[in-house]
């Protein structure tokens, strides 16, 4: 009986800790802290880092005319994006408070290129992901700085998504990334699920991967029906997870398993 009681107490305490700390960890740790030494070495060397190929491709696109476009990105934002402010890039996703509309960096690039006459780019379009990777890379070293003022309702929805179990494997994001960071899932350390390295190059699939694609990949692994590309749910995941990452230095393009 005593054992039963202490179990309940333990679960209750666990519940409180989770409720209190889920969004804003006191000291979030980058996925960099959890990867293997050789993966870190790969990320640290711009010549070896496979994500830099995408950055280079993004730079090329930034300075050239996209199909249908009347202007290059560089026409407004200067050659190589010199006119872009890295502190502003680090604030994404941004939210229009009056309408509670989330705009991710990717959304911003889609809207921007559309204004130049480009047909709306699909969320998984390789050129779009390359542009996004390049622009985020321009803020490498900046601290993630999403302004959380007035975001309570959206973050509550994000947290709900993050703590809901999905698929046949029936786990929520929090089970690994809140309860078990640092333990091993087979040969890999579980991370805290931070977004500061994204878009990141994933060794497991050999591709550059956005935060939203990473969430879809995790849901596939859970044998769940993933949320569709471009869906509001994925935007909420990205907002919530990036707020959790506030304060961490941007590493794009990180190398992750």
């Amino acid at each position, binding site marked *: 009986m005593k*054992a*039963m009681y*202490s*179990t309940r107490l*333990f*679960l209750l305490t*666990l*519940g409180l800790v989770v409720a209190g700390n889920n969004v804003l960890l006191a000291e979030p740790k980058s996925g960099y802290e959890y990867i293997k030494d050789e993966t870190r070495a790969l990320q640290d060397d711009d010549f070896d880092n496979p994500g830099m190929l995408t950055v280079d491709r993004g730079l090329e696109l930034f300075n050239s005319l996209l199909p249908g476009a009347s202007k290059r990105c560089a026409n407004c934002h200067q050659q190589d994006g010199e006119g872009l402010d890295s502190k502003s890039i680090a604030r994404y996703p941004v939210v229009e408070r009056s309408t509670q509309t989330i705009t991710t960096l990717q959304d911003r690039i889609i809207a921007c290129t559309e204004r130049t006459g480009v047909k709306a780019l699909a969320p998984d379009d390789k050129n779009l992901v390359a542009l996004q990777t390049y622009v985020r890379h321009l803020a490498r070293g900046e601290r993630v700085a999403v302004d959380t003022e007035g975001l309570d309702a959206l973050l509550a929805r994000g947290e709900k998504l993050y703590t*809901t*179990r*999905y*698929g*046949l*494997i*029936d*786990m929520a994001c929090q*089970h*690994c990334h809140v*309860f*078990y960071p640092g*333990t*091993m*899932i*087979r*040969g890999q350390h*579980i991370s805290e699920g931070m977004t500061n390295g994204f878009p990141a190059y994933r060794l497991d699939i050999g591709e550059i991967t956005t935060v939203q694609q990473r969430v879809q990949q995790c*849901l*596939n*692994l*859970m*044998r*769940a*029906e993933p949320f569709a590309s471009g869906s509001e749910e994925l935007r909420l995941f990205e907002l919530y997870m990036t707020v959790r990452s506030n304060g961490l230095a941007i590493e794009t393009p990180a190398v992750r398993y």
Partner: protein
Amino acid sequence: MHLARTCSLVVALFFSGLAVAGSGEAQVPVEDYCEWQVTDYEIKEPLCSLKGDSKRGRDIVSDSGRGNCIACHTLPLKHISVYGTIGPSLVDIGKRLNEGQLRLRVADTRQINPMSIMPGFYRHPSLINRPDRRYIGRTFLTAQQVEDVVAYLKALK
């Protein structure tokens, strides 16, 4: 505290290799689900009255598309050198838990610890949120596979 630990003491599996093994598995026809009952924190009766085979169970626990217990637990398998550390070691689990206790922990450990990270390998398919369409109506392991795993674990002494 001690019981909390015991609660998560389980045969777990997790991710990994699902795309490959999962697609093959999903072609097997959907089986009828067998109801089970918890008494004294045990499922005393074998699922669907099936008899387990510990040799088959040993294959299932290290198969990344089926049990994949090794993703989280240590087991005494000669051909596997790397194990996960999320759950407790199961090398002598047969000394600590009886057959009915093992069966409950494999089938649905959340009956004991609702917050457990460990998947339920034999929960009613209607309880699954947003299953991929290939897995609708399915349990994680079949009743026979659960019994095979239980037979294997029971013998770890």
